[in-house]
């Protein structure tokens, strides 16, 4: 297993590298640049800005210097000015023997062209945790509603419980957040005034966005859980378990449910990655200062380092959660072995 994980992590490096190359080439082939404005900047000004951000260098050089800033650690001495161009994710103070105030710095994801005083690392540090909280809350809601609903529907198949449960799920799948979120906002925020319309910070402000985001995914999970559990309940080993006289509770929880979770886990992994890196629609509607906005605005504004940063971050989360999913398989189904 250990060997397998190491192998997968090495693959991750390769995949991230390939994603970075493809993203870099794709974004640079789209017309328009970061300094295209409705009110045009003079060519001389654009030239100055391009020079400042190294955008006038050959493409391969821009790529290597970008990747170099991320992967190659540097050591700085003394205090460095707070500066968007020198903002590192990891800063490890070194012992005095290495020099005066020596700090090992690593992972500079570059500036954002939209703001001189902030960097991509600032976005990771300040906006990502907010999206992470929201995504996690939504995922917990999705699982807490979706799984019991799916199990109930499967166990009480073709009864009123099943129809009600699946009816709710169908509604959840059919109403995207772009509809549910404004409805919630208008009803609870504007009309009843019991929850804040927008913002982030306290529990009250988390309720509506987490619910809106959680409900859609609860529906997906409910349908998946039901289908999977129904299939497992028809398996021979369930009949065997019942035949040998195990109580129904044990049959369901130990034998059926655990095995039926494999498809659910497969979906929850990538879902987790998507939710915690930010969701544009919900964050925009509820004015949440999360990361979701940057996935969209970086592309429309051709903010190259932010495009690279957000995509690499998402890819990283996706790969890691998929690895976790694979490890979970082995636990859920002892027949799965990776050695």
């Amino acid at each position: 297993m250990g060997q397998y994980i190491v192998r997968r992590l090495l693959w991750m490096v390769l995949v991230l590298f390939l994603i970075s190359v493809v993203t870099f080439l794709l974004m640079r082939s789209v017309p328009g640049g970061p300094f295209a404005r409705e009110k045009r900047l003079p060519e001389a000004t654009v030239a100055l800005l391009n020079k400042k951000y190294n955008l006038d260098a050959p493409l391969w050089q821009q790529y290597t210097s970008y990747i170099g800033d991320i992967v190659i650690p540097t050591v700085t001495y003394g205090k460095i000015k707070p500066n968007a161009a020198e903002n590192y994710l990891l800063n490890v103070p070194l012992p005095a023997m290495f020099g005066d105030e020596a700090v090992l710095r690593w992972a500079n994801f570059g500036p954002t062209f939209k703001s001189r005083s902030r960097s991509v690392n600032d976005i990771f540090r300040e906006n990502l945790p907010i999206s992470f909280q929201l995504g996690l809350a939504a995922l917990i809601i999705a699982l807490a509603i979706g799984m019991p609903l799916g199990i109930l529907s499967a166990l009480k198949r073709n009864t009123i419980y099943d129809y009600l449960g699946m009816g709710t799920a169908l509604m959840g799948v059919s109403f995207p957040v772009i509809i549910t979120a404004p409805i919630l906002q208008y009803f609870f925020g504007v009309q009843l005034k019991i929850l804040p319309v927008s913002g982030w910070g306290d529990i009250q402000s988390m309720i509506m966005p987490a619910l809106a985001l959680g409900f859609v995914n609860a529906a997906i999970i409910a349908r998946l859980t039901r289908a999977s559990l129904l299939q497992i309940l028809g398996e021979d080993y369930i009949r065997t378990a019942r035949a040998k006289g195990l109580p129904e509770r044990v049959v369901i929880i130990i034998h059926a449910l655990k095995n039926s979770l494999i498809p659910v886990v497969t979906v929850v992994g990538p879902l987790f990655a998507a939710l915690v890196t930010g969701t544009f629609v919900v964050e925009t509607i509820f004015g949440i200062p999360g990361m979701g906005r940057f996935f969209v605005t970086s592309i429309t504004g051709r903010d190259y380092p932010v495009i690279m940063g957000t995509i690499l971050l998402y890819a990283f989360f996706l790969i890691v959660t998929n690895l976790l999913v694979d490890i979970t398989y082995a636990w859920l189904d002892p027949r799965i072995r990776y050695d």
Partner: protein
Amino acid sequence: MARSRKIMRYMLLAVLAVVLTTSGVLRAQDPKIVSSGISMVGGDLETIDPGLAEASSQIEVINQIFVGLTAQDVVTAESGLGLASSYEVSEDGKTFTFTLMDNVPWVRYNAETDAVEEVTDESGAVRYVTADDVKYGMLRSLNPDTASPYSYVLAPYVVGATEYNAGEGSADDVAITVVDATTLEVTQPDAVPFAISIYGLWMARPVPQWTIEENGDAWTEPEFIYTNGPFALKEWAHDESITLVKNPFWPGSTTVPQAKLDEVTLRFLDPGVQFNEYLAGTIDAVQVPVEAIDQVKADATLSAEYVSGGNPCTYYIGFDNTEAPMDNAHLRRAFSFAIDRQSLVDNVTKRDETPAQWFVYPGLQAAPTLETNPDLGVKYDPELAKAELALALEELGLSDVSELPEIPYAYNDSSNHGAIAQAIQQMWTDTLGITVTLSPQDPTTYFSLLSEDAPLVYRAGWCQDYSDANNFDYDVFYSASSQNDTGFVDATYDEIVSKARTESDIDVRRDLYAQAEQILVVDKAAIAPTHWYTLNLLVKPGVERAPSVTGNEAYYLWDKS
């Protein structure tokens, strides 16, 4: 006995004190706090650095915390005094000598004491804003290393600045001279009278050199920033809001008086979210989102709180004057006369805009207005449009409009540009029988397309940088302007707007701009202006918004009762 009476007396006093305080007799006046979303959108404010700002939301914040030599009067649009208490112009009209107020300190908000405090230097003396600070601010914007996006607006009005800004000259050759701590001399190459308003623009404001040198790009964060205007920066919650607090040390000038409000929070929310917050009663002033205009006007409460005012921007349809068939002036005129502008603002944009008869916004200095020049420019005239179309077809050697090549109408697919494009497309079909092909584009792609090769027909807009007709007619459509995408070149037009630039008599200037507009929108019909923008706001009762014609809010004039 005596002792208990004494206690009784104290208790009575205590009760009286409580009653008086809670009833408000002894209580200090409630702080006047306002929250607003006007001019703001979702996301973060990209910068509040005067040398780097480009968007009106950024400039709006800068106007509250940094005051320059001069300041625009938000009611008359004229240039008034800011940091300068007076100024003199040399006889040749080229050198401006400013006398600065000597009692404007640099201030910062101290979070520990919750108060704005004057900044002192190493010796403990208060740091006042000096001529050196203004010079530093101007030179910093002009410095090519700063890569200031708006230095090009200032550069033509200072001798040596264009060369320095282009990286070809030296800072020493830029004609900004500090005579003494409160006297600054600026010399421009031509005798342009409105240069006075340029010297007060955001990229020419004083900035605190010592903190910029110490803290680099992060100097605009609340812990490092020093400001001089009517408000100071209290908090900047990135991606959420910015809070400004009254600076009691700003002495006030005639144009920028002391603030009446104690605190203003500007929240970065998209218009739709702002509107919902407003309905929930959690924000005091907002812009009305395009889709909510009908709702606001129909609602008894909201329509009473609705405020509409001028916004110095012009919406227009540009034509590629150099490419067939739009290189034909008759055809361009036909397109322009066929736009029913009143119907467009009544039925499509619905924001109480004024149909635009010409390009320059009428509220600007020296610009013609509907009162001074009611018949200038273009108006909807279907008969004239058809007549012009017939002339165009004759010149093009075509017998019918069906022989015209396909004409695309390009626009950036955001805001209500799509709805406007569809309406105008329909008007052209109805009046001229020409159906253009709508071509919506991603905004960034669109803006770079315009700079490379403008489409045959495209949408565009222009908002003021400074309040003078020159900012429209000269800065955009002078033949050599980098903003001129139409390819329109006219020697007479160039001559008129150049002459108007250095003319000092405002009536003569207005007349010159009227002549220039006649060429631009009628004779040559290089563009078809459609409407002049408005600002559409909702303001809660009790909040006294100061009217502003500049497109920016002046919170230092707001009050709350």
